[in-house]
């Protein structure tokens, strides 16, 4: 979703309707909004299990690549061959860019 926002912003920048600086501000606002929305409006739990392919911890950001993962929710199950997980620090206010 953030990707779509970025695309739209880029289009506007191309046509010079907005400045890149403004686009950046919009993205920041989006980050805040999506974080708030996720925190407040979403209430579901997911379990997953798989095999870890790579892990990386840099700048307080974990990046994992998992293989053959099963994402299990109460209602259903999703199997994934490969998934990348990017996780920011949830204890302090870390920046988070959602898709």
């Amino acid at each position: 979703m953030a990707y779509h926002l970025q695309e739209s912003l880029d289009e506007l920048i191309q046509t010079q309707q907005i400045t890149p600086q403004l686009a950046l501000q919009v993205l920041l606002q989006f980050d805040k909004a999506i974080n708030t929305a996720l925190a407040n409006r979403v209430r579901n739990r997911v379990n997953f299990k798989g095999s870890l392919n790579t892990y990386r911890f840099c700048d307080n950001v974990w990046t994992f690549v998992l293989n053959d993962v099963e994402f299990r929710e109460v209602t259903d199950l999703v199997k994934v061959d490969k998934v990348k997980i990017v996780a920011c620090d949830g204890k302090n206010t870390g920046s988070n860019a959602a898709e």
Partner: protein
Amino acid sequence: MFSNSNTLPKLYLSVIDDVMENVRELFLEEGIEEQVLDDLRQRWESKVLQSKAVEGFSKDNTNPSNFVLQLPANYSQTLQKTIAPVVIPAGQLAQSFAAKGSTIATFSLPPGVTYPVHIPAGVTLQTASGHLYKVNVPVMVTKAPGCQRVSAQANQPLVEQSTVSSTIIHNIPAQVTGPCPQTLPATQTSQPALPTHQQSQSQVPQPPSISLDQSTRPEAPATPEPSINQQYSQWPPESPSEFTLDGIEFSPQPLDMSMSSPLTTQLSTGLLGASGNAQVSEFGCSVQEMVERAVKAEEEPVALASSGDTMSLLPDLERTPDSAVKLEMELLRDYNFNELTNIVQMDGACDSSSEAGDEPQELEEESGAIGENEFLGMINAEALKALQGAGGSSDPSDSSSSNNDESDLKELEEEDPLNSGDDVSEQDIPEVFDTENVVVCQYDKIHRSKNRWKFYLKDGVMCYRGKDYVFSKAVGEAEWFCTGFGCCHDCSWSHIYMSDERLNRTQLQAHLTSVRIGKSKEVKGKQAT
């Protein structure tokens, strides 16, 4: 997770709303018009909706009962399926439709159907002549006394002429994604103009609902173009309710009205004007029918991910007494049946009609292929270390001849202890971003015990095969195997990767398991291919 499909649209829309509100001030400070803000919002919404990340995102989902229109022939059941976005009976899809040329379709209301008739998006209508129209945009057909108004809506390109009995359809302005070749030769109408005429007469669902309705079926094969066949239609009106739909010309225009409107399903005016150059066929009012349509046209390429809603405008409010109204739809683009079928996919092709589901596999294959080439160069270094037998000696020579220079290989051989296998994992597994299944979240706790990892995550968004899911909490566990060049740390057992990572991983896993159990002591220095 699949329950998310119901809540996600609302969630995303609410996020969009929040962001837009917060950003409005920023825009004003910069001295940028609100038009730009609305433009941004429209583009964003259209992209999100088109991405199919959010399925079933149709306003019509809330009003299934409104759909009454039934076309004759075999589309009655299709019409019944008001909501399913991808309900397009395969056999009923037009193979292709005349790319450029005005088509005239007439629809007639089935007997017993009274106005107003609401055709939700996603329904395929078939005219008597056999033409298929896919209602990409919810259409409401109303009967207005003495006046016809057609709000052209950019429907999917599969429009063919039909001479079915007419139905008056109000097109609820909805976004038509993908190429919408429909054109309305009618005179252009402006949105403000329409309301004045139609206010008292018709109910046109609000565009905002349309924005929701939009193209979850981006390239629906057929869009029903309601046509009001009044007197001047080419076909003699079969009944007073006949009308033909002239081609609707679309030009890419931001759908201002629909996007900015609140998510309501009621149009106060009944006309959905499309900003831009929408040309709407002219309508005459012969019988007491009035058709309004908002036409959205899109000139974007047919890619599923194509965004850019355009709305072509609404029909002129002309009233030609006792003249049939005709809308001619011109296809701006050709559509292949294949494209249509691809478009119709429910499984969420992420950005293009290519199979998103196959992409992860493709990526793996590619990485495997890449790995092969790279491995060939590195096999030499590794082989020297691992091979004892003469069987391995042929490999480096082969690989060197096929891949690197011998000198490089020699260097590798010399530096073997230092850099053999370094960065292999990264080369081995290129972390490609394109259409990769991604989870973006926050972590509460990441725990590791030997090679067992436990993840405690929260507030995340997951994109899998183009579909979005969200979670407030996620707990996972995974086991980490040394999947690089297959080195077992306990012994010097190593193996040479083949192209299939999984096979290697399995082999390595099996080996590690056996090592742990303490069974295989003989594997020291053993090469496995």
